[in-house]
């Protein structure tokens, strides 16, 4: 029975605004959550799949002692694919020549991800071959270094192998730009026969796994106990440009998405409030006619339920469509991408809708049903009192949402406290300004006077409006500026014409020859960094342990591998001194250490390091700690020595240049001319980074639109909430003889003043937050955003006035008598 009444009322109410505002807010909230988390998830899984290609597996367990067979068993139980490899350095001999090489021995399953391309011809990479027992595949330059050709035999340890061909493409080749020893690929079964692996040899054992995300996660958690100090999971390379970009974009997307949702939820709360105010009379009448409180509750609760079902349904569908669209986009630039369907975004969307509906919108409707029947006898229904519970439940909801999205109770509480502070500040400002406005109005035109009088009279409702307007504008502005700043940042990391080809292992002669070639082809070489490999043996006379042992875990663990050392007069561009002093011209025996390494090895200024280069020992004092931007695709060094130290060592050089895709032919010429030089191309990485930037910028624009839509929604809901009161006031003013043009002007002034104030507050807040972001996230010095200072207030005035005028246009058009009749009927 009540269902019929509820449905009828609901249906009729659809022609009025509030239910639509609530519906649209919830829709926006669900859409935002589903699409954002869905899209981030897709991009993340795409990047995961992509980086899995780079390490040839989804997950790798590295060990310095032996393969961890217990982990292998666990992985087998989880039905994960697995492969093995061993890496070590050794000398190879070919007749009378020898060379230090870096060897990778792999099991037959390798690689689990990505592609291994071998060729049986040095000149022709298309002669596909596969790795057989007794064979070695060599990096191209080894053939000239050892002066051999395909089919010749080479010695590795105690065994002879056939040099069967070249490595054309290796999925997990080191991405590092540094020159490493030439590489050799062999079968795992052949390793024993070489006799190289002895106790104490420096060897890296790698168990590689691939499979479903969930299984991989299980493997990691289930094997926690099984890992010794020598075992380490290899994480996806977070220091790479790609990892950094993804991290930042994810944080940013979630944060901005949240802003949009909070805005939308506020709009829903305002609309629900107005809805219940407008229905207070009807509820009193129904109750006088015999409806109980619980019946009224059912009737109006069902309205919210209908709206929620409607919005959630459409929100889920639209959000999922966007996710599919983005997956389709991802597949476009990454053909091997396997789209995965995930319920998590949908569940998150529904949860968000439930939180928004229950904590933002349900309360006013709950209170509505409690309106006393006695109100039918009152000429003027009670002024709606400020609802502390509603404010509290809304606040809790915002905090819950923040928690839900950040997954971090500390961050969410901190953010929430910040919001409260903003709200309190705005409230104080608004109260102050409206009070100050009084003396200012003296001598102004009377329409302006009326506008200001109106503002002052509704001080508290206006202060609340001002807060929401300011927040809405603030979030839009913030996002707009953050978006462009973020994109700038990324673009700077990979600027047009950034070096994309690196040449490593250049000798002094190569150096001069290359400079001539560069001149002839108008290539711009970066500087030549001299380079030798060496080890750090001791600090302040205390030797580093090779490995952390269970007995002496406190002993400092050394770098454990060779480092590329360089010597420079000047600090490289993308390095920043954290402490200490850079070398002066007469500096003797000093070293500058990269900050992360210094932290890991617990090194500090003034420590004395002992180095070994080519068997020669020398000491250097740490005179500075540097911060290095690892995101820049530039040669970077952990240790930079003062020039005096390196004079005697035979160094090779590293340099880089930019080459357009269309000039690939030149690369072949360089490879031919400098057979012992390794050429490393980072074109594909650069392209990926650019692709991601393009994707993320589209996503950001989309979010900006969402947040802006939510902001508009808040404005609409707020103005709607005052319509009834405005109608009555207009009626009275009209009856008292005010002209309609005068009233129109007064209304416009009122909105413009509100908009200007809100714009100003929004600008202030945005500037403060942008400054904080600049320093916290981007490590940039503060610089004011001049554009913000005109854009903020202007947007405020234009947006609020336009939306306000648009909504009250009906009122202004009404004749005085219609207004009066409507006012009396209320």
């Amino acid at each position, binding site marked *: 029975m009540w269902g019929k*009444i509820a449905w009828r009322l609901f249906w009729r109410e659809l022609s009025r605004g509030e239910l639509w505002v609530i519906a649209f807010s919830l829709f926006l909230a669900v859409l935002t959550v589903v699409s954002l988390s869905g899209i981030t998830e897709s991009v993340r899984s795409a990047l995961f799949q992509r980086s899995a290609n780079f390490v040839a597996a989804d997950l790798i367990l590295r060990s310095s002692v032996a393969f961890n067979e217990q982990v292998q068993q666990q992985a087998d139980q989880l039905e994960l694919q697995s492969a093995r490899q061993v890496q070590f350095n050794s000398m190879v001999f070919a007749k009378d020549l020898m060379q230090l090489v870096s060897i990778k021995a792999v099991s037959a399953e390798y690689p689990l991800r990505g592609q291994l391309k071998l060729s049986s011809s040095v000149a022709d990479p298309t002669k596909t071959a596969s790795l057989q027992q007794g064979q070695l595949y060599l990096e191209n330059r080894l053939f000239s270094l050892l002066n051999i050709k395909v089919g010749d035999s080479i010695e590795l340890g105690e065994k002879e192998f056939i040099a069967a061909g070249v490595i054309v493409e290796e999925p997990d080749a080191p991405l590092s730009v540094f020159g490493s020893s030439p590489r050799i690929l062999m079968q795992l079964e052949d390793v024993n026969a070489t006799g190289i692996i002895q106790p104490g040899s420096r060897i890296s054992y790698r168990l590689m796994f691939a499979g479903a995300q969930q299984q991989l996660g299980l493997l990691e958690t289930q094997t926690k106990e099984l890992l010794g100090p020598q075992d380490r999971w290899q994480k996806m390379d977070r220091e790479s440009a790609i990892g950094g970009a993804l991290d930042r974009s994810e944080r940013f997307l979630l944060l901005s998405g949240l802003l949009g949702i909070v805005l939308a939820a506020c709009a829903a709360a305002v609309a629900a409030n107005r809805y219940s105010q407008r229905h207070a009379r009807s509820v009193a009448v129904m109750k006088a006619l015999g409806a109980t*409180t619980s019946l009224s509750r059912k009737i109006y609760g069902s309205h919210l339920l209908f709206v929620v079902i409607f919005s959630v349904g459409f929100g889920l569908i639209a959000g999922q469509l966007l996710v599919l669209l983005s997956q389709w986009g991802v597949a476009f630039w990454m053909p091997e991408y396997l789209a995965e369907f995930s319920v998590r975004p949908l569940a998150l969307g529904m949860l968000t809708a439930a939180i928004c509906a229950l904590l933002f919108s349900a309360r006013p409707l709950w209170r509505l049903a409690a309106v006393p029947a006695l109100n039918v006898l009152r000429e003027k229904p009670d002024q709606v009192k400020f609802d502390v519970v509603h404010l509290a439940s809304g606040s809790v909801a915002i905090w819950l949402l923040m928690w839900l999205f950040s997954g971090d109770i500390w961050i969410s509480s901190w953010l929430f406290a910040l919001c409260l502070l903003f709200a309190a500040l705005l409230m104080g400002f608004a109260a102050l300004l409206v009070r100050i406005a009084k003396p200012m109005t003296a001598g102004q035109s009377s329409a302006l006077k009326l506008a200001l009088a109106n503002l002052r009279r509704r001080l508290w409702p206006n202060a609340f409006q001002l807060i929401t307007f300011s927040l809405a504008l603030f979030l839009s502005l913030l996002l707009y500026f953050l978006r462009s700043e973020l994109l700038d940042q990324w673009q700077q990391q990979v600027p047009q014409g950034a070096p994309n080809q690196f040449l490593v292992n250049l000798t002094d002669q190569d150096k001069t020859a290359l400079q001539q070639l560069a001149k002839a082809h108008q290539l711009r070489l970066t500087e030549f960094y001299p380079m030798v490999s060496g080890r750090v043996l001791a600090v302040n006379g205390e030797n580093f342990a090779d490995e952390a042992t269970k007995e002496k875990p406190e002993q400092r663990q050394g770098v454990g591998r060779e480092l590329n050392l360089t010597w420079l007069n000047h600090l490289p561009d993308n390095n920043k001194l954290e402490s200490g002093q850079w070398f002066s011209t007469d500096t003797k025996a000093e070293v500058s250490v990269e900050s992360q390494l210094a932290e890991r090895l617990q090194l500090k200024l003034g420590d004395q390091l002992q180095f070994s280069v080519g068997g020669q020992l020398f000491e250097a004092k740490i005179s500075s700690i540097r911060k290095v931007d690892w995101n820049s695709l530039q040669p970077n060094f952990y240790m930079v020595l003062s020039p005096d130290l390196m004079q005697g060592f035979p160094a090779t050089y590293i340099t880089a240049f930019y080459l357009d895709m269309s000039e690939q032919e030149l690369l072949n010429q360089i490879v031919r001319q400098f057979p012992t030089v390794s050429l490393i191309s980072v074109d594909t990485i650069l392209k990926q980074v650019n692709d991601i930037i393009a994707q993320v910028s589209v996503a950001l624009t989309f979010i900006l639109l969402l947040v802006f839509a939510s902001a508009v929604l808040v404005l609409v809901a707020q103005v709607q909430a005052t319509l009834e009161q405005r109608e009555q006031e207009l009626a009275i003013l009209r009856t008292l003889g005010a002209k309609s043009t005068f009233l129109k002007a007064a209304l416009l002034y009122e909105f413009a003043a509100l908009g200007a104030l809100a714009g100003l507050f929004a600008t202030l807040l945005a500037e403060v937050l942008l400054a904080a972001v600049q320093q916290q996230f981007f490590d940039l010095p503060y610089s004011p955003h001049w554009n913000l200072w005109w854009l903020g207030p202007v947007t405020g005035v234009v947006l609020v006035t336009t939306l306000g005028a648009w909504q009250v246009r009906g009122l202004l058009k009404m004749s005085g008598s219609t207004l009066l009749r409507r006012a009396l009927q209320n």
Partner: protein
Amino acid sequence: MKTPIPHIVAKDVVKTVQLTESELTILQDIHLTINQGATVAIVGASGSGKSTLLGILAGLDQASSGEVYLAGQPLHQLSEDQRAELRARSVGFVFQSFLLLPSLTALENVTLPAELAGMPDARVRGLELLAQVGLSHRADFFPNQMSGGEQQRVAIARAFITKPAVLFADEPSANLDSATGEKIEDLLFELNEQQGTTLILVTHNHELAQRCQYRYLMHAGHLAAEQPKATEDKRHVG
């Protein structure tokens, strides 16, 4: 002359409201007995407490002390929901400002109480009543498409649809011009007579008061009866 059955009884009714600092007494020592089918007018100055008394007699509000009986039920002992049910069954209202639900049509407004009380044939009864108040042609109109007089006629139809035992009317013609107001009053008395409803009217209008069998004067929270002179008055007005 048949023996009158007491239908509404108020004993020692007091109504006070708590203000921030003091306590305000709105009604004091109200004694009242109204028989079934009687027509009663309550007159008095603005702010004297008429609407407050009406609210208490109709079970919309509760007295601070004293006893109130409506159709044999002790209102002062009923819970809010029980009073709501009693209203649904036995009470009809007509208000000064009509108070139709703006989003329902005339017919839907009329049938609303019947639907709330779970009565069958609400629609048929509603159409009948609309015809009776002369508004068959306005059945699908919304309140804002009707004149004040039409709205009040719809409100009267709504009041009678549940065949209530008692009808309360608070200034039913105050928002209307005198001619329309009179028509509304005629309708009220006509339906009242037809259905044998007890009618309790609050009004400023003395002519309207004169049409009732009993008149009470409200003065600063006290209620005083005037002499019943039903027969004379009917002649006067008629």
